[in-house]
């Protein structure tokens, strides 16, 4: 079981590193999609199926579509610009895998000191997700509706710009 969750964590971390390192933005977004997929598996494993389904449909689906749409609307680099930026990109991101390996090793060998004091008291939960979402919340629902309207406006601007470029 422990090996199982370690594999899932690797499926979550490796695409995240690739998303950061890949020079091609489209490949970065595809790696981000796989990272979302890994997170979904982890959420299912941690007894959170509803959050997992939400992450799969919105985090992996909608956000990837938005990113790919935005990338398709931007100007592609010319061959000279591409060549000039390649070196600079890899020089900036070559340190990331080493930093991650060092942090992971430090966390792994000091986990007893770091995580040993994190003791959680198990409490019984009676309310369902629906009761918490719609029963416990008050005025913040209005704020969430306003945020959703802002998102709709953002998507309208995004797609309007695409039409005018055609």
């Amino acid at each position, binding site marked *: 079981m422990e090996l199982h969750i370690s594999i899932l964590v690797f499926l979550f971390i490796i695409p995240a590193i690739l998303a950061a390192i890949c020079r091609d933005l489209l490949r970065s977004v595809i790696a981000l999609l796989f990272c979302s997929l890994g997170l979904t598996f982890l959420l299912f494993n941690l007894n959170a199926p509803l*959050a997992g389904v939400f992450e799969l449909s919105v985090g992996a689906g909608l956000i990837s579509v938005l990113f790919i749409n935005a990338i398709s609307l931007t100007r592609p680099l010319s061959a000279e610009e591409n060549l000039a930026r390649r070196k600079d990109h890899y020089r900036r991101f070559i340190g990331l895998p080493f930093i991650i390996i060092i942090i992971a090793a430090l966390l792994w060998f000091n986990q007893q000191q770091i995580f040993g004091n994190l003791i959680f008291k198990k409490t019984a939960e009676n309310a369902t997700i629906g009761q918490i979402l719609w029963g416990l919340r008050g005025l913040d629902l209005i704020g969430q509706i306003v945020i959703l309207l802002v998102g709709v406006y953002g998507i309208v601007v995004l797609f309007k710009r695409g039409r005018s470029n055609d």
Partner: protein
Amino acid sequence: MTNYFGIDFMAVILIICIGLYTLVMAKNLIRMLIGFELMTKGVTLAFISAGNANGRIALSQSLVITMIVVEVVSIATALAIVMLIQHKKNSLNVRSLTNLKG
């Protein structure tokens, strides 16, 4: 002996480090948003693993659902702003945004 909570939180710290590194080192605006997205995924995992550890998984799931909605909205709005910048400057390089520089 390793517990699940430790492994989950190691993943959270690593993914937030990856996102922060991308956010700091990237020059491309879309890549910066990818870094932001990675950090929010780390926060999502932190909420759920903490909820799983203390037995209040329904509360953490409802918080995560709200957070994912806000995350999508912020990405959509940020991408719209990025498209407007690209239209005005014909570049996605963050170093070219020097209009407010004194």
